[in-house]
């Protein structure tokens, strides 16, 4: 009986000794953090999700519309262009707790940002008149006609965006690179080495 009790004690001691050592070797997840660090992680996560939208890239695109109203008794041609803007942003409210993983021992953090969203931010109000040719017996283009030409170009651009991914790919890639640089510097300023990924 005495022998089995001492054997049990030895086994218990060994389990505590090696079990404790292996626990301290686990890479930092939020579960292993001290209460103070957990509060820090939780506060930072909460405030990051409250920072609304962060814009990392913007693209300007030129659209040109040619209006030809030539008839038998004279030419009537107008060429107009304007710029439209796209923006690539990250909606930080879509950040979830699993997207921010700290290793406080190694001072590293893995951040998985919400996907970059590309949307049309607007178009120039003014219109550039690139060329006009108005015959002697014809009247010049009016405001309504120019507005219609701009509208046709606007509709065409939306269709082009839907069928051609290249615009979105270019701006998304630039935005992702910028976001990585920004968040790396952000965490570095507080002594953390950051790995930035996207969903």
């Amino acid at each position: 009986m005495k022998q089995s009790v001492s054997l049990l004690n030895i086994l218990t001691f060994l389990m505590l000794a090696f079990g404790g050592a292996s626990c301290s070797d686990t890479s930092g997840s939020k579960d292993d953090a001290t209460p103070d660090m957990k509060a820090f992680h939780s506060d930072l996560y909460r405030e990051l999700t409250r920072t609304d939208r962060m814009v990392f890239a913007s693209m300007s695109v030129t659209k040109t519309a040619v209006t030809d109203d030539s008839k038998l008794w004279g030419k009537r041609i107008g060429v107009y262009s304007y710029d439209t803007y796209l923006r690539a942003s990250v909606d930080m409210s879509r950040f979830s707790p699993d997207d921010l993983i700290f290793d406080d021992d190694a001072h590293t953090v893995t951040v998985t940002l919400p996907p970059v969203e590309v949307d049309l931010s607007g178009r120039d109000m003014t219109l550039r008149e690139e060329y006009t040719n108005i015959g002697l017996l014809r009247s010049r283009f009016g405001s309504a006609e120019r507005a219609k030409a701009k509208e046709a170009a606007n509709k065409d651009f939306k269709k082009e965006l839907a069928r051609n991914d290249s615009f979105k790919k270019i701006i998304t890639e630039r935005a992702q690179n910028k976001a990585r640089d920004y968040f790396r510097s952000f965490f570095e300023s507080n002594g953390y080495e950051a790995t930035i990924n996207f969903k």
Partner: protein
Amino acid sequence: MKKYIIGKIILYAFLLLILGVAVTAGYRYLSKEFRKPPVTTVRPAVVKDVKTMARLCTVDIYSELPVLDTINGKVIMAVQKQRGSVSFDLEKLHVDSSGDTVRFCLPPEIVELYEATDDDAYEVIDTKSLSMFRSGTLTNAEDNTVKRRLHARSLERLYKDGVIANARKEGRQQMARLFSAFYRKPVLVTDSTPRGASRVSAQ
């Protein structure tokens, strides 16, 4: 004699018929030409430039406004949908976290105001001349002047109505909370122009 007169009548009738056919064909062709609508061709989009930035967007703007303006004796009535945003350049933020308190100064706001890309974002209702002997058609330059004036008035209204002040307040609060959580220190934000730092924007 009778045959001569009948022959002449037939000849004149024939000529009248030819004339009638020619006039009808001409009328039909010309009215078809008149009715032919203008053809608008759109060229493919060309990327002008891509800029990278790190901006915190605190307010999105969307409005629909009537446009009533007079230029060079002509009046234009239209409706415009506008879209924009108020944001802050985070790269211009110089955060001093060396002491017990984190300090930074809120940078100038970036106000962007554009015509929306919604369908019929700019709809011309009517144009007219104030003078009887002048055309009411505006040139493109006159149209652009009207739009620049509208843009300036819209910006003015954003500042006057407190939209920019609210955006700055929101920006201050968001950044203060974020840096306080990040550095685990109290934050002191300086905003020397709480009602708006600048009136410079796109366009």
